[in-house]
């Protein structure tokens, strides 16, 4: 199917998309249902201004590039980006898999034999939908289209992404990773990631994004659904560095059954607008979640992020920690939401958000929403806003560090509680990005 770049989102388009992909009937029906929900759902009534976003101006689905099988078959440009991001090194260090999504199709994928031998399924979402009919029981059951407009849009036009199933009791020793970027101008990217961790299993999944700059605004609206069954552990790490014209509007949600642990680690460095609120619903007794978020808002950016924990069982715990750095005319908003239902006796929740403002024009807001429907609960909340102290800057400079180096060191120190949870290769990249931005700003 050749998709015109001026495609409009219509029923015909969605049907053609589904048939081109050779999808089962249930998926086609799901897409059409999502489209109907999308059409009657208004834009979110909170957060950044999205009026400049003209959904009808977007080609929702980009033509796939021919699949490649090995590293050498990757397009030169992609390889260069990988090199700049030090990903080959990461691979050398035996990261289990590497999938690169160019536009909307997975073109490169490798998986270590040992992971396959453990019975783990690590597949492109498109293929998995055809191969495993039981996915129907999970697909968009954690985040239904009725949740919000972008969830519905995603459900109608999603393409690509990753499916991971970890068998009961299997511990995946090395992180699995995928890497997304946008290539074509004004193309939305709607990858779907579904992780099902069977009882007693464990998995760390890493998702990294970066995109070159485009003339027109681009839209990214991915979805991540995680089902962490009894006693399983899932950690989901995202590093996002979209170009400064991208609208990055995502849905991420996990269900944690009894004694399961779900950790979200997010680093947001790029995009024009980001809306991202990874959520964990603690469904079983003793389930726990940790949400570590780092954002760096620069000139003209609005990073509206947050974390949500919904306690629906006794003895559940949540820790929501954020560090925001704001530079130039950037703006950061952190919404830390904890909802403790009446049945969640003995729940514990802690929300902590700290912001470092680097310029007088920088703006920040923290919006904690703590709601407890039982008295048997421990809720903690801390919020701080600070500036870089001139004493600290002078001290570091008196040891021979330039102003940019000194700033970068102080900011790195500020975000270190999050940074130390991010895999080394990404932490190095984050440091480089921070230092570059201070060199530009200070001159």
């Amino acid at each position: 199917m050749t998709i015109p770049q001026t495609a409009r989102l219509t029923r015909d388009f969605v049907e053609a998309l589904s048939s081109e992909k050779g999808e089962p009937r249930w998926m086609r029906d799901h897409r059409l249902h999502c489209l109907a929900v999308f059409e009657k759902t208004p834009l979110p009534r909170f957060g950044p201004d999205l009026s400049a976003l003209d959904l009808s101006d977007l080609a929702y689905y980009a033509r796939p590039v021919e699949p490649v099988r090995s590293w050498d078959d990757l397009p030169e440009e992609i390889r260069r980006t990988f090199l700049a991001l030090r990903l080959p090194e990461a691979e050398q260090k035996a990261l289990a898999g590497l999938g690169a999504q160019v536009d909307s199709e997975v073109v490169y994928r490798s998986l270590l034999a040992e992971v396959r031998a453990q019975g783990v399924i690590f597949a492109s979402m498109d293929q998995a939908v055809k191969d495993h009919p039981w996915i129907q029981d999970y697909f968009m059951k954690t985040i239904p289209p009725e949740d919000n407009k972008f969830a519905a849009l995603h459900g109608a036009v999603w393409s690509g992404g990753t499916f991971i199933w970890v068998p009961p009791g299997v511990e995946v020793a090395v992180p699995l990773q995928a890497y997304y970027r946008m290539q074509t101008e004004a193309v939305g990217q709607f990858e779907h990631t579904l992780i099902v961790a069977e009882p007693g299993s464990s998995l760390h999944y890493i998702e990294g994004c970066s995109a070159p700059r485009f003339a027109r605004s681009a839209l990214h609206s991915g979805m991540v659904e995680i089902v962490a069954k009894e006693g399983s552990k899932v950690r989901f790490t995202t590093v996002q560095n979209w170009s400064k014209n991208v609208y990055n509007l995502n849905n991420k949600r996990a269900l944690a059954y009894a004694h399961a642990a779900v950790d979200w680690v997010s680093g947001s460095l790029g995009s024009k607008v980001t809306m991202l609120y990874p959520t964990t619903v603690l469904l079983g007794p003793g389930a726990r979640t940790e949400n570590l978020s780092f954002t760096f808002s620069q000139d003209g950016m609005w990073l509206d992020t947050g974390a949500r924990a919904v306690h629906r069982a006794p003895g559940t715990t949540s820790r929501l920690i954020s560090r925001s750095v704001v530079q130039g005319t950037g703006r950061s908003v952190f919404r830390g939401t904890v909802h403790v239902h009446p049945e969640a006796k003995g729940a514990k929740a802690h929300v902590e958000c700290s912001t470092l403002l680097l310029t007088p024009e920088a703006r920040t807001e923290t919006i904690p929403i703590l709601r407890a429907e039982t008295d048997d609960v421990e809720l903690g909340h801390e919020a701080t806003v600070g500036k870089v102290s001139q004493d600290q800057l002078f001290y570091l400079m008196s040891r021979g560090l330039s102003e940019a180096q000194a700033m970068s060191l102080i900011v790195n120190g500020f975000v270190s509680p999050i940074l130390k949870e991010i895999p080394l290769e990404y932490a190095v990249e984050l440091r480089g990005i921070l230092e570059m931005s201070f060199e530009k700003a200070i001159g």
Partner: protein
Amino acid sequence: MSVLVIEGLHVEVGGKPVLRGVDLALEPGQVHALMGPNGSGKSTLALALAGEPGYTVTRGRATLDGEDLLSLPPHERARKGLFLAFQYPPEIEGVSLREFLRLACAERGQGFCEFQRSYPHALRRLRMEGFDGRELNVGFSGGEKKRSELLQLYLLRPKVALLDEPDSGVDVDALRLIAEAIRELAEGGTAVLIITHYPRILEHVPPSEVFVLDGGSIVERGGPELAHRIGEEGFEVIRR
């Protein structure tokens, strides 16, 4: 030949003149002492030389190895070989002592391998082995901060070291340790200026020259016996 030369230095802080024409010179490999009562301008001299933005030089000059120092930003003064051990070093959260020192040493031209050798040695020298994994000055006691300054000084091996009250808040054992490190540094060729109002540390590190600052200018110069006299009779000796 003098490594640091200060001539007719006038410095203002918040629009108020503090130094009113300071002249002094430091010799390589020698220990010098700058003494003076509270508020005489000792710390102002050190901070102005290091380039603290709040300290404005209105007249005079300062050169390091004959090159003008005052037109340079603080980090370039440091890269040329000037070091200030702070009286009150700030705490910097999340920044590891080791990582910070590695960066600073790299800017002084020390390679990674050299640092791998010199760093553990310096930690042992200052008996700071237990501080390796710590964040820069975070939670350090007053005396520990002074030792951390000496550790940095010891690793960076500057041409000129200005030490602003390295002895205040320090116990006897730590004082001896600090004094030994300073002596070793001077033996290696560093020109040292110890700023203090107590002669106690100078008993451990005898200075070749003592300057007395009062009212914003040097009012007296002499050998180690001058520090001793101040210890016996107080700063009254310079006012007679």
